[in-house]
């Protein structure tokens, strides 16, 4: 069988991080090729290289598609050759109709005038192919996620797709919709359309995939051929997580005390879709000096849980109790949560963590201006001293504390966010993806800071999608899936396999 796509020795570096390192993948014509790996393994980056989001020249290696070497300068180039990517976050315009969305940027028009009857007729055909029984005039916002996914696929078909790339297409679908989607892929396969399927749901992959490429830490681990032999989920998991644990985490002798923080029956609903329960009766506890992890896949509800807890910053209809030192505390606004000594360092520091246009000094004191002011007047000198102190303690690399946050590297920005929250003097520190997008050296520094906090008697709740990080740092790990805590593992008997099994098992229920 001929290959439709060969990506050879693809290497892509971002400042400070090697996202892809000599990755090879070969997709044969008319097969469903699964791409698996942990969060951050480089799957999405690889697909962005393929589709031209990262143009030729910004990476090294070669892409051979339909027998010729291709140098895509943008998405338009790859789409023209039939490579269509459907992203995890759907790229539909909610207030336009299905037909308008399908032909967006590719309108059925003559001299700029749209031929609506042609567009509707064509849309009807496409919707029939994907098995979506809706009028072309229906607004996309009125469709469920599963149907929106089908609209995306119809859109791809309208562009004469030859290689369809689906990034976590079933992540937010229920079982019935997922099955329909997978059957559609099998149907396309019969018509000779190849696909690349990125998914965490290994049971689905074993159902439809002809070949599986496993990525880990930006490199290709192996390619498994499912036609030659049956590949078990265990086999795939081993490939995904089988990395050797080096000395990437600073040593720490945990000194764990009594339980200081408890969350009881915490539930929260989606802010817009009121019936959707995003956090389901979560119960957890943290002891003095303990680092507790929450593992889970993206979209498991971990951030939503943390933000709903921190001053109801996410969701609505929030219920549950929060207990600190045996007393129930009020965390209904951020201000109250902070004054009750809870801090939450966000996963998205640029959007939620920093005022980018302001300098380090002003960002550090933002959550505790009272700490550097008297009678509402800021004491410049004291503020400067505080900022300089944290700059030294956290080893923030910048010419001075007057450097604007926007000009700092990811690692240093993260240190500023942490400084801000440490200056608010919390007892419970919730860290959401504290090392996301940070290079290895800075990660080690952040880990050291976290360990120091725990040793200082604080309780740390650490959310991370990188399992090795949780295993290397935490004393106890909760596993979250679909809004519920589904497992609690002591570090002594926790492993990536166990976490993955817990997730896969609960996902299948």
């Amino acid at each position, binding site marked *: 069988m001929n290959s439709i796509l060969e990506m050879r020795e693809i290497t892509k570096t971002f400042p400070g991080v090697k996202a892809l390192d000599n990755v090879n993948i070969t997709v044969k014509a008319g097969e469903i090729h699964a791409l698996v790996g942990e969060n951050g393994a480089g799957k999405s980056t690889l697909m962005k290289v393929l589709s031209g989001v990262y143009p030729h020249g910004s990476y090294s290696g070669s892409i051979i598609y339909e027998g010729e070497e291709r140098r895509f300068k943008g998405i338009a180039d790859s789409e023209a050759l039939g490579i269509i990517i459907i992203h995890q976050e759907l790229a539909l315009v909610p207030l336009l109709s299905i037909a308008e969305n399908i032909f967006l940027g590719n309108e059925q028009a003559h001299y700029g005038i749209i031929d609506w009857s042609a567009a509707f007729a064509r849309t009807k055909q496409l919707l029939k192919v994907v098995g979506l029984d809706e009028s072309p005039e229906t607004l996309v916002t009125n469709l469920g996620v599963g149907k929106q996914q089908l609209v995306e696929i119809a859109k791809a078909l309208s562009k004469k797709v030859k290689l369809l790339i689906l990034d976590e297409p079933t992540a937010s679908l229920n079982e019935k919709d997922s099955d329909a989607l997978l059957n559609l892929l099998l149907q396309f396969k019969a018509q000779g359309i190849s696909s690349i399927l990125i998914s965490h749901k290994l049971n689905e992959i074993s159902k439809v995939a002809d070949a599986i490429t496993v990525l880990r830490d930006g490199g290709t681990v192996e390619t498994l051929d499912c036609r030659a032999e049956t590949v078990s989920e265990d086999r795939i998991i081993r490939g995904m997580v089988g990395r050797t644990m080096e000395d990437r985490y600073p040593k720490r002798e945990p000194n764990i005390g009594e339980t200081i923080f408890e969350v009881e029956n915490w539930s929260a609903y989606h802010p817009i879709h009121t019936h959707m329960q995003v956090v389901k009766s979560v119960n957890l506890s943290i002891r003095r000096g303990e680092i507790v992890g929450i593992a889970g896949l993206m979209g498991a509800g971990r951030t939503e849980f943390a933000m709903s807890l*921190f*001053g109801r*910053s996410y969701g609505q209809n929030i219920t549950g109790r929060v207990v600190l030192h045996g007393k129930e505390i009020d965390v209904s*606004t*951020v*201000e109250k*949560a*902070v*004054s009750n000594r809870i801090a*939450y360092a*966000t996963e998205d520091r640029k*959007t*939620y*963590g*920093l*005022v*980018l*246009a*302001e300098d380090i000094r*002003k960002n550090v004191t*933002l*959550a505790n*201006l*009272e700490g550097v*002011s008297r009678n*509402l*007047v*800021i004491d*410049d*000198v004291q503020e*400067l*001293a505080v900022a*300089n102190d944290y700059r030294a303690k956290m080893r923030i690399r910048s*010419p*001075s504390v*007057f*450097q604007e946050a926007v000009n700092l590297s990811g690692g240093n920005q993260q240190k500023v966010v942490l400084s*801000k929250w440490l200056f*608010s003097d919390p007892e419970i520190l919730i860290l959401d993806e504290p090392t996301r997008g940070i290079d290895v050296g800075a990660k080690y520094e952040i880990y050291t800071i976290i360990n120091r906090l725990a040793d200082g008697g604080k309780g740390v709740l650490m959310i991370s999608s990188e399992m090795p990080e949780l295993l290397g740092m935490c004393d106890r790990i909760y596993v979250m899936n679909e809004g519920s805590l589904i497992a609690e593992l002591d570090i002594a008997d926790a492993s990536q396999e166990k976490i993955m099994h817990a997730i896969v098992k609960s996902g299948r229920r």
Partner: protein
Amino acid sequence: MDTRTADDLHVSQPKTSWMEFIKAHFRDYGMLLSLLVIMLFFQVVTNGTLLRPLNLTNLVLQNSYIVIMALGMLLVIVAGHIDLSVGSIVGFVGGLAAMMMVRWGFDPVTTTIACLIMGGLIGAAQGYWVAYSKVPSFIVTLAGMLVFKGLTLALLGGMSVGPFPVVFQRLSSGFIPDVFGGQGFNYTALFLGIASLTALIYFSFRSRSNQLKHGVETAPFGLFAFKNGLLAVLVIAFCYLMATYRGLPNVLVIMAVLIALYAFVTNRTTIGRRIYALGGNEKAAKLSGIKTERLTFLTFVNMGVLAGLAGLIFAARLNTATPKAGLGFELDVIAAVFIGGASATGGVGKVTGAVIGAFVMGVMNNGMSILGIGIDYQQVIKGLVLLAAVSLDVYNRKK
């Protein structure tokens, strides 16, 4: 009061030379420089009329209400909003003052207090919709602009109402009396000028020594001395000129106190800092425990009070309230803030910038009027200057 700490604290590289420092702070100095250049230009082309004591006094009187509103507008814009209704509030509050004093027989003090409260209430009403109901401020204040323009007409019955009691007129046309009894020369004006200058220089020295003590690299001493020397010359020269006429107008004192107060609030207080954080990144501010809604609400209340004050000053200056008072003021005020370097997306802007911006507009208005340029081309030129100033700023920021 120390109003310049934050401005001067910026630089960090060791051993800054004059040129490097000026380059790094071009935005701060550039605005002041352009104001001086514009003044010099009009001083030359008007054959020295611009800086004659009489005209200088007029310049202050004509621009006081714009400057005062620019202080409030700066906070609104820094918080990431806009207020289009201030012109109409000026008209409405002026009308209310006229009705209270002329028709309903209230005394000037009661009237002034009531009018300031009314301004605050109007601001609160608009701020409520913006802050808590999340209606875009552009829409809310556009509606407010129409509503209060209409209410002014209704209140005054379409007529001009005046004149006012003399005490009230003093708000705008009065001068600080000379306690030293100089003949044709107002020693008080010079004295007040020197006193405030001394205070300014004292604080400027104190903040510099504080900075040096904490290892913050400051402007080179030569530049620092030059800056303060220039400031001294300008203040003394200004006060001397005013002293040879009738002294310092009351409204100048009100304006100066407000400028100092707002510079202090924005630079040194927690509420000021929080407004900048709110405009810079509302989500991050909220997640840092800042009550963003209440803060937005308060910036609008503040704007309302200042617009009310401007309404009183403007009415006192004309000695009559007309239905057309305040028409188009919002444009001058908003232009002043943007010329002064504020960012339309919020989070950036300075009180000193807004004041300089207001005077850039004011000097151009005044200078072009002296030259006899018609109101038609005056607007064209002002519009182009606004565009040029802001595009230069955008270009500078990109660099």
